[in-house]
Every structure is written in C-alpha cells, then in structure tokens.
C-alpha cells in the first residue's frame, strides 16, 4: 500500500471552468494512467478521489471540476499550501493495446493527458458541454472535439482499442459501440483503499468495490 504524504501546492491554474492543481511530487510514485489519488480537501472530513492528469518531472497534476465543497476547496488552494496525498490507488488502464483511441467527456478527460503520454500520443476524441469547458482540450493537443449537442461517440472511428473516461451515459454509449473498450468509472468514495464499501458498483453481476477492482474496467 502506498504511503500517505503531505505535499506542497506548486500552482492552481484555471483551465476553462476547471483547475489544474500542481503538487510537488516528492518521492510519490505517479503510478499507471487511470490510477487515482486521495487528496485531502481542506476543511472537509473526507478526501477526494482524483485520477492523475499529468506527471511532469517532480510534479503530480490533477484536473479538478469544482462541483462541490470538497473539490471547490481543492481549487482554492494556493502555492505553498500543503495537503495530504495518498496514492496511487486502484487499477489503471492496460497499455498493451495495438490501435489506441482515447475517448473523454467533460472532466472525464482528466486521466487522458497522462495516458496519452504513456501511449505515445494516440488519436483522441473529446466531448464537452460548451466552448468554455472545451478549453480543457488544450491538455491533449491534436484531439478532435465535439461540443453539445454533438456527441463524442459520433466521432469514434471503427477498428480502435478504445480507452475512455467520462460521465456514465457516455461510458454506456461507448460500451455499446466498442465491446472490449477499457472504461474508467467513477463512484463516491470515502477511503479509496477498500475499507468503506461506499463505491460498490455492479461488475459481472456482482456488487464490487470500484476502488479495489477498478476504476478502469473492461467493457463486457
């Protein structure tokens, strides 16, 4: 199990409606793309689960959508602040794919920049609800973009090994189109290491803990 460590905030940069939180990496292993970290949310009881967005030398960077009090507190961090960081946790994407295609929707693009780097920048298609949100596509240069009402699934060409992260309806649509796709799911999580049983989702007809079995699962 990884160690939980306090790390310093290097920067919190706006990216459209999101914030890219850059932390001093220290000795923390950035892990496999699609794995996640539990980040202490200042003033909140529970940490927040966030997949790693980028791992430049000496840094861990997380793309955060301030949708609630915890993510908002993380977005308000300032350089020099410190937070507890616990990870990497869970199972990331398998990288042994022949013709990778990255598919992302909204804040679900978060793990894709780090994944793109590991896969030597394969093609990517991204969906956003507005031009403002689509500014985050700058994190994945060269990606094709769909903006609501166009759906990202309309941009998926045939014959690729799809690796996807996004809202649940998008993942269901991707699964229907691309059997065998690797999908990164999301669920409320209190602990991130199998203790709380809060993140149970149905996998192969059984409820299992997404933090232990996922968050990346293969579409069946």
């Amino acid at each position, binding site marked *: 199990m990884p160690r939980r460590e306090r790390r310093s905030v290097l920067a919190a940069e706006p990216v459209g409606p999101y914030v890219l939180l850059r932390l001093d990496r220290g000795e923390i292993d950035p892990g496999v793309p699609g794995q996640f970290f539990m980040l202490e949310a200042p003033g909140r009881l529970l940490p927040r689960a966030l997949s790693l967005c980028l791992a430049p030398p000496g840094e861990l960077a997380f793309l955060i959508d301030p949708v609630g009090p915890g993510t908002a507190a993380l977005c308000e961090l300032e350089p020099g602040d410190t937070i507890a960081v616990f990870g990497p946790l869970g199972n990331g994407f398998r990288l042994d794919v022949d013709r990778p295609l990255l598919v992302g929707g909204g804040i679900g693009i978060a793990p894709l920049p780090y994944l793109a780097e590991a896969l030597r920048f394969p093609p990517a298609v991204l969906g956003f609800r507005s031009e403002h949100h689509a500014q985050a596509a700058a994190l994945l240069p060269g990606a094709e973009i769909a903006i609501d009402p166009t759906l990202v699934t309309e941009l998926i060409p045939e014959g690729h090994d799809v690796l996807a992260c996004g809202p649940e309806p998008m993942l269901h649509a991707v699964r229907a189109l691309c059997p065998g796709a690797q999908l990164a799911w999301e669920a409320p999580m*209190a602990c991130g*290491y*199998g203790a*709380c*049983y*809060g993140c149970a*989702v149905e996998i192969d007809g059984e*409820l299992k803990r997404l933090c232990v079995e996922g968050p990346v699962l293969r579409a069946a």
Partner: protein
Amino acid sequence: MLLNASGCLDALTAPEIARRLDGFVTKTITPLPREGNAAPRIAETAHGMLNAIGLANPGRERFLSEHLPRLRELDVPLWISVGGFCAQDYADSCAALEDVEAIELNLSCPNVDEAAESAAEIVTVCRAATTLPLYAKLSAAHPDVAAVARAVADAGADGLSLVNTLRGMSLDPKTLAPVLARGTGGLSGPTLKPVALAAVHACFAATALPIVGMGGVTTGQDALELIACGARHVALGTVLFSDPDAPERVRDELNRAAEALGVVHLGDVCGRAHRSEKPLDIAPKVAA
C-alpha cells in the same frame, strides 16, 4: 487496546493497517451473502458522514471457508462481528465460530430492518451457543442505553461496544432529494463523539462490563476522553477512511496526551470522568 470499528477496515485489502491495531474487527457477517444497498451509499455531512452500505458481506459459509483462514494468517487477534434478522441467525453464527478473540453482536445497524427480538433476548440465545467472549454493540439511539446495557449484561454479555452510528439523512442541495439511495444512513465521524462519550459514561456507571468505546475518534485526545468516560478499549472508525495512518498516530497522541496530564498507566484514567477528585491537569507530574 486499539481496534477498528466494524465495517471501517478490510484487513484482507489493507493487512498492514490491520497489523497496526491490537485486534481486527470484521465487517458484520450474516447467515446468507448480502450485496448491500444500492448506490449512492455514502454522503459527507458537515462534520461527519452517512453510510448505508447495508451489511454487504459474503455470508457465513463463505466467510468461514474463504475469508477467516486468510484473516488468521495475518496473526492479528480477530473479533468477528455477527449480525442477523432473528436471534437464531446470531446464535447459529456464534456456534459456528471458534478460536477467535471475541464475537461482537451487531444489535444496532441502522441500515437494515432490525431483528424482532430485543438485544437481551439475542444475547441470551448467543450465550447458550458459545463460550467465546460476547460483546454487544449498542446504539445510542435508544432512549435509555444504560438500561439496554444492564439487560445484555444480565443476559450474559461479556462486554459492550459503544456506539454504533445514528440514523440520519442528507439532501442534494439542487434536487432536494436524499443523497443516499436508501434515503437514510448511519451518521459517523466527529459529530458522533459527544454522543459516544455520553453513552460510554452512562453504561460504565450502569454495568461492570468492559467497554470498547467508539464514535468520532479522530485524535488521541478523543480516545483519552472515551477512556475517561469508561472505555477500556477504543476503536477507530471513520478516521480510517481519511487517514490510513490513524492507528499509529492516535496511539502516539493518546500516550502524549496522557503523559501531559501526568498519567502513568492509561488504566488509571478509565472512568476518571466519574470521580470527583481534583482535576488531572493540576495533579503533580510523576517523576520519570
């Protein structure tokens, strides 16, 4: 002795954390497998959290054949939490267990329908089914938890676990619908500590049973206060979710907090809140 609260740690996925405790308490085992409640099952509140996991567990048979042998390999004293939907469910599980440190009877889960029998009736049939130490886990939602404690003591319980979570609800601010799929869940975390202190205080005064105190323990000071109310042992719950290093940290803080008050043996503090001696903070420091 420092334990985990049932349902707040999986020793098989986090063995190194379980080994830092003086005993590992399992998630509640029921006779048949249970998937638990639908998602969402957890929600953060102002100073706590709600959970409505719903006693998800592999069932008694699979627990005994697959999980228990692996838990024994950890070489940590095992406390088995047992649940059910009638007294016989509890008794059958008690009878099936041997060579474990203790059995904790979960008589107070707020996320499932309760057994028809009273806590004391369940303890009575379990007492007849096992010679292992039986700890009754009670809820502070009962208007007179001390009376329940006396009743389970008379029925043959060897100890008390206090407290379980309290039923609560959280609404989504945008939809005004309950966040949890079940609607309600068990409230835990720092918000529960004063409730736990009061319950431990009342039950310590009402019975001579050893008490495992739990509810909102986040720091060593919290643990010390539970001990002062009468807890002989302390269990960590929600704090394990945010801080997997809590066992060592709380233990260190507890020792330092006791030392700062001139306490030599933690046992001397047990029940201290009941005695009208001069306050500890002006007691002379004991020379090292």
